[in-house]
């Protein structure tokens, strides 16, 4: 019987209420989830253990989301990144995709919306693994 490891997701948002909302919903789907409110800590953790997926806000103090996702992609190019932002513009969306994000979600969004995006990302990751 195949031992399927739970996909690991790192969530970074400086608003605790966002993480509090997302974490139980994603854990319920069977994912291993860790949340961070500050980007330097999140990056240090990611260096220890590259997660399968990262969900990150963009507008944060110190290391902003754009710099964070760039570092994530450098460390682990196969990690899928989903950007969530309350200050969405076409330019930030385009820049996010240029840096390799899987999807870009503007706040507010329902849990179902991000769950759908995560499942699509999972399918893409499985396809990529099968092709390797």
């Amino acid at each position, binding site marked *: 019987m195949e031992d399927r490891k739970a996909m690991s997701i790192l969530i970074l948002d400086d*608003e605790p*209420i966002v993480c509090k909302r997302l974490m139980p919903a994603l854990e319920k789907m069977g994912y291993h989830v860790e949340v961070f409110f500050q980007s330097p800590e999140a990056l240090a953790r990611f260096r220890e253990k590259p997660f399968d997926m990262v969900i990150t806000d963009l507008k944060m103090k110190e290391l902003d989301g754009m710099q964070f996702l760039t570092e994530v992609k450098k460390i682990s190019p196969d990690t899928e990144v989903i950007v969530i932002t*309350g*200050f969405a513009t076409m330019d930030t969306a385009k820049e996010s995709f240029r840096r390799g994000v899987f999807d870009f979600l*503007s706040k*507010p969004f*329902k849990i*179902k919306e991000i769950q759908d995006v995560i499942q699509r990302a999972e399918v893409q990751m499985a396809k990529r693994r099968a092709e390797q």
Partner: protein
Amino acid sequence: MRILVALGGTPYSAPVIREAAKLAYNTWADVTLLAVGPQTSGAGKTPDPRLAGELSTYKEDFLRRIRDEEALYPSGATECAWEKTGPWAWEQICKGAVGRKDLKLRIRQGVAGKLILEEAKKMGSDLILLACGKGTGCAWEGDSGAAARVVSSAPCSVLAVKEEKDPSMIVCCLDNANVSQESLELINQLVTIHHAELGIVGLTEAKGIKSEVDREMAQVLKYYSDRNVRAWVKMVETSVFADFVDESAEKDLVALWMGRPSLLDKIFSRQRLGKLVSSTRSSILILR
């Protein structure tokens, strides 16, 4: 974000398409264009061709305004057809259309207010855009109370779109401590898109402002200040609040935080809210 654009097949729809395109261009939202009209003859086997034709025109207008260099919404369709999804309900399905985000076209025929609310609940919308005339109402054929019903009972925020105008100020009014995270985030997006300033207005009674309202206003002000959004605070007495809203709505985008329980609910009963939405010259945002 998921946006439901409710269109009534009236001349009011052009400004709402522009607003929807502007929002979608910046937020990369999934969008549903919903045309609602009365039931016609034919037992609902095929959609009203007038609604179908208008919706196709609005879709073209929407995509033209997006200037979709990022292939944001499905294009390149080889064949589109209306598929029945339920009694007096259809969705356009297009083969070969590819896009990063969803752009759905739906038609519902029946009581407009009820159908818009059903659709909003089904798709899990975060915002409903209602097509309304500038100072002349949000009339839906066969359901004159549709707009009032939607703004009063929607499960999410509702923007009644009036004229084509970019507000330089968004005036947000609150009377209790029930400001949802979703509403804060929606205001963020509107401030960003319109490069607007933000006014936070608290409702106060003759005996003074409620301490929880005062606290909530301070928290909301801090929330936006921390995010470098230019914001100011003002108190307005209950007795003159309705007039204040009427006056502000002339030039700015007024947003009402309609939480429960709400003094605003009492000041703006469904009838009064419907009248406000219908009569003002500027767009009104009901936040939930």
